[in-house]
Structure formats: structure tokens, C-alpha cells
């Protein structure tokens, strides 16, 4: 089962990014744009660290997480991914 919640989120982000890449016949995810609400209780450093650990060996290994804050919201959303075609 999942440990601290950043790992749960990182796993979910990784799944969304790799599935989207595969559906678009891409084999490498370069970066992932995220919208993170101010009330989402996410620690961005922990999220980036968790993501770099669990993405190893996947299509999204080494992908950068680019985050945009989002006022008054608890949303966490994958906005877009950038891939190598």
C-alpha cells in the first residue's frame, strides 16, 4: 500500500503521463505540467523526489514536473505532457 501521500500522487501522475504517451505513440515524456491547488496539502519537493524515484525505468524517467499554483482550490491536475515524437 502507498506510503506518504506524495508517493500516491506521484504514482497517479506517472500512470496518467505514461498512458497518455502510449496512446499518442510517444516513447519519452519530457515534462509534465501540473496544476496544484493551494489547499491540496502537497509538498512539491517531496512530490518531485517521489516522482523521480518511481519513474525510473518508465517512459517518464527524468521528466520534469512543472507546477502552476491554483488559488482557492484543492485540485491536483495533470494539465499537459510534452513528449518526444
Amino acid at each position, binding site marked *: *500500500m502507498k506510503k*506518504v501521500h506524495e508517493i500516491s500522487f506521484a504514482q497517479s501522475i506517472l500512470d496518467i503521463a505514461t498512458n497518455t504517451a502510449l496512446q499518442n505513440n510517444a516513447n519519452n515524456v519530457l515534462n509534465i505540467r501540473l496544476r496544484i491547488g493551494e489547499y*491540496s496539502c502537497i509538498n512539491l519537493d517531496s512530490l518531485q523526489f517521489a516522482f523521480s524515484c518511481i519513474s525510473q525505468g518508465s517512459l517518464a524517467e527524468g521528466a520534469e514536473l512543472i507546477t502552476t499554483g491554483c488559488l482557492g482550490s484543492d485540485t*491536483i491536475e495533470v494539465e*499537459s505532457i510534452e513528449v518526444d515524437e
Partner: protein
Amino acid sequence: MKVIKVAASVLKVNDTIALENQAAFRDNNVFVVNVMGSPGAGKTSLLLRTIEALKDNIRIGVIEGDIATSHDAELIQATGVPVVQINTEGACHLDAMMIKMALTHFNLAEIDLLFIENVGNLVCPAGFRLGENARVVVSSVPEGDDKPKKYPGMFRIADGVVLNKIDLLHAFEFNINTFKEDVRRAGELPIFEVSCKTKDGLSVWLDWLGVKKK
């Protein structure tokens, strides 16, 4: 290089499973309360008092979430109601999948009211829906009156707040008006001032539970 629009909610996996749990609860007429709050606020004590008061009239079940041990589950088990312990082994919150797994140990048709006692934590459990009908935050006098101000996320998603250990108000510098004002800033929530030790105020909480359940 190519940018692909995604616009997918990261919590979707959890939310999807939470909806499945919710459907299972609805099909079996089970009212589910997710009980959250800091370690030591009195979540288990509140459940013990609630079970004591209601168990002759309502069939109650409990899911206990803890990082380690089955200590709380054993306390609940002594009351005779069915209880399942989830050990999160380090995780700071319960998620919908953990609840789904725990439900395999219950016969939902034989339960009217299910309490899910979350991991003691005022931050992370707020982010994960479990499929519950109501979310309750237990806070307590010794923790200080600043908790709603410092952890607004938890109070914002709550349906009710239990302020426990009011028998200790004389011993702490706890301004109950400050506490209430800050709760109100998070939302129009009922606040139940109780002492699980002396049983003061519990009837109001029990009445609310009864009304919500209907």
C-alpha cells in the same frame, strides 16, 4: 516535441474507487462516517462512547486505520461490534482502495452505521474521499484553539466538528470563541462540545448522527 493536453485529475483513481465504495454502502443502506483528527484528540474514545450509546438500537461496524498496532481495534472489539484494523505501515491517511479491501471482511447487509477511524493526522486524510456520507473532525482542548486556523483544509471538508475534552477547559488557555470563529471561517459546521470522559455533550452529537443517518 509535442505537447499533449491531458486535463486529468490526479485523484481520479482514488475518487473512482471511492464511488464504488459509496455505491456498495448505498445498496446496503449503510451510513458511513469518516472520523478524522490529530493523534490523541479522542477519535477512538468518541467511537467507544457512541457505540455504548447506540449499539442496542443500531448495528454498528468500525474500520480502524492506524500506522501500526491493533490497539484501537482491540478496544472496539471489546464492545462486541465488528471491527477491521487497517495498518497503513507508514502511510499518513486511508485511501479508498484500503477501504474497499477492508469491506471484504464485513457483511454490509448486517451493518447500519459504519465508522471509519482515519489515521491520526490533520492534513493528509482530508485529500482522500473514501465513499463516506459524512466527514467529522475530532479536535480537543489540549491541542489548542488554533487548530482550525492552522489546518483549514481539514475543517473545510468536514461536515461536523467534535471538540473533545471540554472537562479540561479550566486547565488550558483555550479560547472557545476563537476556536468557533475559525471553524466558522472554514464553513457553517455544527460544533459538538463534548467530554468523552464525563459524557458531557454527547447527546447533541448522537442526535446529529441520528438526523444525518435518516
